[in-house]
């Protein structure tokens, strides 16, 4: 599975301006709603429900908010590089500036989990994360995400 199977070029936000975790989730939900045609409120609530179980910040400045949405027809990913790092209640305390949002349809089951695992492992790679941080526009970010997985150690 390629990351670019999950995220389309137009679902990349190169410099999102937000001040808080809540605002970030709201913004991402709104963008995701535009691209999928779903209700932004519903998306936001799904994400919030997941955050209640424990933060989706995975450390090293990366967060992967996710959840399941009933009416979605396929797995949908959205990547955002934040203009300024924000507190995402990460266990390692590091502020987050790379956010990958993943929404899955109700019946996605194993594919949902595999996609999440794939993203988590990709963004944990410090080389990739630093390249993403250094990229200034959507095209550059997309090309980093599109690197074939074999080059990922």
């Amino acid at each position: 599975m390629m990351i670019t199977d999950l995220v389309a070029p137009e679902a990349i936000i190169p410099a999102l301006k937000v001040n808080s975790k809540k605002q970030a989730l709201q913004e991402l939900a709104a963008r995701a709603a535009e691209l999928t045609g779903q209700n932004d409120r519903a998306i936001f609530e799904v994400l919030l429900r997941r955050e209640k179980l424990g933060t989706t910040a995975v450390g090293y400045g990366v967060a992967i908010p996710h959840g399941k949405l009933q009416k979605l027809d396929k797995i949908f990913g959205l990547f955002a590089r934040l203009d300024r790092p924000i507190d995402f209640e990460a266990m390692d305390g590091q502020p987050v500036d790379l956010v990958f949002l993943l929404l899955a349809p109700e019946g996605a089951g194993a594919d949902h989990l595999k996609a999440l695992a794939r993203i988590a492992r990709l963004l944990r790679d410090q080389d990739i994360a630093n390249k993403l941080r250094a990229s200034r526009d959507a095209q550059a970010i997309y090309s980093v995400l599109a690197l074939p997985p074999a080059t990922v150690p």
Partner: protein
Amino acid sequence: MASLDSVSLAILLGAILVMAGILSSLLALRFGAPLLLVFLFIGMLAGDSGPGGLTFSDVQNTYLVGSAALALILFDGGLKTRFQSIRTVLAPSMVLATLGVLLTALVTAPVAKYALDLNWTEALLIGAVVASTDAAAVFLLVHAQGLRLRPRVGATLEAESGTNDPFAVFLTLMLVELISVGDSSIWHVVLEFLRESMLGGIVGVIGGRLVVVALNRVALPQGLHAPFVTTAALVIFGVAQISHASGFLAVYLAGIIIGNRPTRAHNSVVTFLDAATWLAQIVMFVLLGLLVSPYRLLDSVVPAVVVALVLMLVARPLAVFLCLAPFPFNWREKLFIAWTGLRGAVAIFLASIPMLVGLSKAYLYFDVAFVVVIISLLLQGWTLAPAARLLHVALPRADRGPRRVELDLPGQLEQQLVGYAVRPMSLFLRRGLIPSWSKPTLVIRNEKILTPAEADPITAGDYLYLLAPPEKAEALDRFFVDMQPMASPDPHLLGDFLVSGEITLGDIAQIYGISVDPTAGQLTLADYFDVHLDHAPKEGAVLPLDTIVLVARNISEGRVNAVGLRLPEDEEKLPPLTRMGAFRQKAAKAWSSVAGT
């Protein structure tokens, strides 16, 4: 004037006895002897057949002191019980506390009948007197030996011993009534029991809530909160007893309710009751020791030993295994619970009831109970710690938290002041991390009090005091222990996401679309680890849940409170191993097989 002198003498002697009890605890701790036994022996030594030569046969006063002491001990036990920790063991401990006591009494009775040549009712009375495990003994011996049990086993034992005393008291009173008055029907007994326990429950719950309200509404002078709560416990006990409800059940429940709600001066109440309980234990055991006559004891010692052995080796294990059969305990846990059926003051106290009433064989009951308690404390009390380790129910000592100072702040309940010594290798100092819900408030350096701003930067050796909600104080420990210097492990092994141990399997199943047993949906992740892991969880312990793997990431007080979720990935694309990498992997594997991690 002579009568005044005798009062003074009584005070002097009483105080000396109690003080001897307190000092003897040093001795007991050094030699690991069960403390309670030492108190008992102090009483015996002072008694009429020991060198003390005091004649004491005041059953009335013993009963009075015993009741009050027991009520306080049970109240204290309830106060320290976290409802969250007993919630999952409520069912098994209730079965043990009722059916278990009945079974133990029934199995012990035939042996008592033939060994002591009694009729059935009298034999059953012996069974009832020795049937309940002693809350004081269990609480005290488990904690005094520095033993930390697996949470589920420990919670079951504590909840059982707290709630079975009322049942044993009831059973004993019923049988005493039966012997002294005569006939009674089984329905009468059952109805009476239901009435007593219901009423006791109601009095306890209402009383507990009233105390909470009073504590938080009435502005008592500083220092009177603890005595107020203590006397309130005795009032609750008295109200319940007078209305023929179970006073012991009532105080235990009231204790649980008060201990699990935010109240003013909670810490000072707990400290005060700790002291009160110690005193109650010592006074009660010394008195009971005084009451016994070792010479008379010799007459019935052989049959009494037989009763004790049957009780410990047959009746209690049988009752435990039968009662716990429907619950998910493994055999080692059941065996340990069976072995920790410590008898204590309750048995001797119950045995003083026939004396009080004046039954014909009253001394026999008392002597048998006395021998049973001594043997139980000696044999079981002394072997408690080795048994716990042998049966893998003890937690490793290593994960002891740092010393935490908690201070109540008058005027509100949401926050308290929590203090720590700042350690050089702590997460706080190394990474400057602190949870957002806590607020550094003052720093003590070289006996000077500074504000955090003045003290900046905080260094090792300072004392830091933070404001934090009382229920979260424990979660702060993590930031102030010395971190183990460890190579950062493969993040994949730790899991991709981190969730709290208090969320349920149902939550996880819903969000990740995995299937879990519907009956387990309400189980929290911490409970899931507790139930399914065969040994105490260590950091890094893994447990599969459908297709994902749960990883214990943080453990506190034996409970897993942070869980990593390791998600499945089908195409595990490993880079081709370089020679160095392959060597490193082999070495790591060899090391882990040697180190056994």
